[in-house]
């Protein structure tokens, strides 16, 4: 295994890397924190206006600026906080902690991102959205459950196949093409309750950043997007608690210093009580069932000294479902990450992470049943990351890093009265990257980099050999090949593993810029699911002998403009994206507990292109945004066998192709106590496959589905309304509470999730009918009481 040895050597040699520093300038570096609780601020801007230079804090709140000796006026900005300007005399390298006071009266009720007000124009980032969770909490929410993922779908380029669908789609990408990170740990299933809600407890989340394009080289492993969710570190100044009681769930969060200014702890939990809704049903098949979820978020950080800080984060969530005491089903994620932030020098920031992620599901009968069984499935990964940021000069920052992921796939194991299992699979995914941010003048900004990834599918495992490996079937299976533990079954490396990333910004003036980006991304694991919305029992499979890694190439162009001192901002982006080796499925594929899963899969290509418009008002009593996406996403699956090719090998619309997608989000601060918010969403109906006829077989009227996704369900639109009442904080005990009221689907539109076709009556009739399924067919009110002290 020479290639594996190469990676091992590189891993060992990496810490020896050392770069010198420029002696002509000094470094001003440190952290930007919230003065009230010590929380680091991600993406805060630290600028030196007279020199026209500046930088933004990284995901750990760290910044570093190279400046000549002398006095400098340094401005620190972050939306929702009072801008601070201070004079710093720099005679040598200096480390500072800059503390920003929260704005006394926050009238910016809805913000899509933090950072400085004109960051959207000036930064090299495009196709990026950042959510401020505090503000998201005031938007109308289904059953009052604040949901950052659902809010993301109100932004251009992000959609779902329908309400209550697991996951989301970004610029024509499937749900498994989103790299969802919770404190750097990948999350394999981001939904509770089959897709009704996301697993992210908004109380425990500090920052959510979505990359739809121009993805930095430090991210890899998924094709279409990165959702980087950061948990709050915990108040390192004083203990505090907050929580809420809603119709669906209750939640609580406690945070405080273990050692003031040095160490803090955050623990948050949620538990739903949907079981009570089940009991409202008259149907004993429903009212004796169990269905609930819970999750626990925790984070501990410890500042060893000015140069070293440790973070330990964890998440554990579970959905539990039972039919009386006859059948149990549960699923959930467990993640953990240990991170070490180290300042190797004032200009060299290093993060080293050890990460663990585990997704499991289990279903079966109780153990005490005479004929019992339990089916378990699991995917685990063990992740090592070593990331360096070197602040070379005022206008130049270099990032590089190395990472490796070891996967253990356990697709299925049945125990109990009958015992059987599918073979486990193992894989290693090493990667390295180098990226440079460079501002050669006042107008140009570049970020360019290269990521190199590879993938090794390893034994022990037995692999079927097929006469036609391009189109394996059970009928043309030849032989079985055995591989020993750790033995290489299939490796993917070489030139194909290069993933160039490039972004450029050209500032026309202080308020206008053009941006362009290109990124190539590779994905080596695939969610095997042929349902419209993924389910908890869908499993990931690694690239191997018959499943190829998928690749995306994406270019994007954008025009960004702000008006009236950044009160309004607008952006228009166009993108074109191609997909290679995406997984599709044979008609009628059997994906459950199938050892020869390759016989059910097909490989295809895809393309997506579109225009995205975002117009936002950031300041004043009325805030909000309008977003519109015009896009088209198609797939194509060719095969020599015409009965296998989908739609005769022609392009067909993807399940989540929606031509028009429009959202309007408004929030108005009536007075210091009351605010109101509203959402309106409109989307073209998603594609479905219509029957082009029927035939009789026995007593069945069988639909003939020929052209996949050649028809569309009626368009979707919905209006939500909410109000938040927040009385002044009580001076004596610091207790504060607020109420959120609202309605989801105000005009009770029966938006079709789907239209399906069925044989109408029982008996001998062959009549057929079209049936519209609406998930939320009525007004859904909500009320939530929130508190903190």
């Amino acid at each position, binding site marked *: 295994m020479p290639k594996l040895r190469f990676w091992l050597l590189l891993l060992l040699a990496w810490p020896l890397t050392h770069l010198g520093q420029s002696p002509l300038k000094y470094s001003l570096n440190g952290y930007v924190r919230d003065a009230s609780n010590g929380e680091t601020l991600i993406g805060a801007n630290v600028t030196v206006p007279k020199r026209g230079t500046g930088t933004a804090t990284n995901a750990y709140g760290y910044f570093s600026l190279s400046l000549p000796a002398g006095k400098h006026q340094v401005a620190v900005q972050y939306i929702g906080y009072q801008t601070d300007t201070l004079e710093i005399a720099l005679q040598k390298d200096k480390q500072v902690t800059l503390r920003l006071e929260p704005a006394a009266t926050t009238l910016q009720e809805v913000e899509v991102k933090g950072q400085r007000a004109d960051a959207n124009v000036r930064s090299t980032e495009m196709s990026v959205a950042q959510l401020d969770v505090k503000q998201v909490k005031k938007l109308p929410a289904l059953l009052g459950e604040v949901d950052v993922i659902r809010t993301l779908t109100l932004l251009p380029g992000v959609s779902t196949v329908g309400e209550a669908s697991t996951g989301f789609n970004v610029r024509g990408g499937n749900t498994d093409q989103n790299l969802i990170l919770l404190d750097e740990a990948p999350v394999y299933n981001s939904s509770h309750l089959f897709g009704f809600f996301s697993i992210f407890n908004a109380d425990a989340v500090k920052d959510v950043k979505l990359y739809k394009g121009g993805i930095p080289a430090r991210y890899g492993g998924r094709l279409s997007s990165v959702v980087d969710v950061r948990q709050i570190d915990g108040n390192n100044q004083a203990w505090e608690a907050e929580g809420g009681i809603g119709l669906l769930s209750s939640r609580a969060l406690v945070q405080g210093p273990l050692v003031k200014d040095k160490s803090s702890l955050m623990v948050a939990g949620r538990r739903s009580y949907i079981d009570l809704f089940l009991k409202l049903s008259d149907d004993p098949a429903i009212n004796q069932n169990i269905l609930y979820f819970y999750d626990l978020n925790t984070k501990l950080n410890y500042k060893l000294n000015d140069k070293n800080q440790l973070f330990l984060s964890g998440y554990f969530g579970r959905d539990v479902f039972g039919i009386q005491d006859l059948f149990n089903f549960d699923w959930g994620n467990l993640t953990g990450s240990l991170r070490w932030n180290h300042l190797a020098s004032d200009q060299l920031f290093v993060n080293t992470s050890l990460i663990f992620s585990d997704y499991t599901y289990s279903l079966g009968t109780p153990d005490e049943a005479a004929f019992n069984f339990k089916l378990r499935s699991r995917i685990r990964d063990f992740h090592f990351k070593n990331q360096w940021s070197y602040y070379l000069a005022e206008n130049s920052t270099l990032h590089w890093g190395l990472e490796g992921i070891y996967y253990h796939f356990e697709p299925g194991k049945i125990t109990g009265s009958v015992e*059987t299992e599918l073979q486990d699979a193992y894989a290693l995914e090493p990667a390295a990257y180098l990226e440079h941010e460079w501002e050669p003048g006042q107008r140009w900004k570049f970020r360019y980099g290269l990521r190199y990834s590879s993938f090794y599918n390893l034994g022990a495992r037995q692999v079927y050999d097929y006469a036609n490996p391009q189109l394996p079937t059970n009928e043309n299976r030849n032989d079985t090949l055995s591989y020993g533990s750790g033995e290489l079954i299939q490796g993917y490396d070489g030139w194909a593993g290069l993933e160039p990333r490039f972004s450029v910004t050209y500032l026309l003036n202080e308020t206008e810029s053009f941006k362009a980006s290109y990124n190539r991304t590779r994905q080596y694991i695939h969610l095997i699911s*042929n349902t419209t919305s993924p389910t908890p029992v869908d499993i990931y499979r690694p690239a191997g002998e018959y499943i190829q890694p998928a690749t995306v190439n994406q270019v994007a162009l954008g025009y960004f403009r702000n008006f009236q001192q950044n009160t309004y901002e607008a952006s228009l982006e166009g993108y074109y994206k191609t997909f290679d080796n995406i997984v599709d499925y044979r008609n009628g594929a059997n994906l459950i507990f199938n050892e020869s899963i390759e016989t059910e899969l097909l490989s295809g290509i895809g393309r997506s292109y579109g225009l995205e418009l975002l117009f936002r008002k950031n300041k004043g009593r009325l805030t909000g945004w309008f977003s519109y996406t015009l896009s088209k996403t198609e797939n194509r699956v060719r095969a020599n066998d015409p009965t296998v090719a989908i739609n005769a090998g022609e392009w067909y619309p993807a399940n989540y192709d929606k031509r028009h997608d429009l959202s309007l989000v408004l929030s108005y601060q009536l007075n210091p106590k009351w605010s109101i918010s509203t959402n309106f969403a409109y989307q073209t109906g998603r594609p479905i496959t219509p029957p082009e006829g029927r035939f009789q077989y026995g007593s069945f009227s069988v639909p003939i589905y020929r052209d996949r996704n050649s028809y569309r369900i009626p368009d979707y639109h919905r209006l939500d309304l909410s109000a938040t009442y927040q009385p002044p904080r009580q001076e004596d005990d610091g207790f504060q509470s607020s109420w959120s009221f609202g309605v989801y689907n105000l005009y009770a539109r029966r938006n079709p999730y789907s239209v399906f076709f069925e044989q109408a009556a029982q008996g001998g009739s062959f009549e057929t009918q079209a049936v519209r399924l609406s998930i939320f067919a009525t007004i859904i009110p909500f009320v939530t009481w929130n508190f903190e002290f």
Partner: protein
Amino acid sequence: MNRSFLFSLLGLLPLLSCQDVVDLEVPESEPQLVVDGWVTDQQPARVSLSTTDAYFAEEQTPRVSNAQVYLLENGDTVAQLRENKDTAGLYRASFTGQPGQRYRLLLTIPNGPPGVAGTWQSEPETLRPVPTLDSINIRRLDRNTQPPALEAGAYALGYFQERPGPGDYLNVTRSLNDSIFQRDIFALEDEGVDGFYFGSGLVPPLGLYGPFDTPPRHADPDTFRTRLESITQSYYDFLQVLSEQINVGTPFDAAPALILGNIRSTRDSSQYAFGYFRASATSSAQVIFRP
């Protein structure tokens, strides 16, 4: 796992969701041949020929008459099926099959649209042996019995020895008072239960029907019948797809797909007809329910 089963049990849905019938215009394709053929070791071979029709067309699809239909055993023609004078499109012969033999259907339709006229043949189907259905018993079951039942009541349970050796597949046909459960697809494979006796030791009997409705006083007792039919893996797969595709549309259903059987044009193997020709051995039993 039936994914729509998961969906229907998601408790919020009965409170928030709804289904209603809507009018839609859907595309219409040209007629194609449909074959429903069956040779068994017990009953005369029969084949029903029809064509496809518009999806929302009412009642019966058009029948295909005047076809020449032949049954081949191991490559040799063993019977010509004749059209029934009273039922257009139904062809029968007195021939019964033998376990272990391979059967094939060959038919010629002289006139009709391009997707109907021509000569067609099936893939060969092996008539596999079937386990003997030893008995059907009626037992009262509830949540605390073994096997348990969600709803307490009288259930019909089948007892039989699954044939040792992997690769056995069964189709189960049930009827109550001669009324066949027509809309059910009940097919089994022997993976995990190969060679087991259903109804002995840890393996429970096969649940066939229940709970029985309590009949009015003095009413005739119910007669419940079950027939086990041996089928090939290919037909089992066909039934699985058929079952999956008859109702699709919830978030957890697979994408709609074309259901192809084992009938192809002799001139162009990429040209297919709908339906299936199958071969089965059968075993039956019945029980009378007296509450």
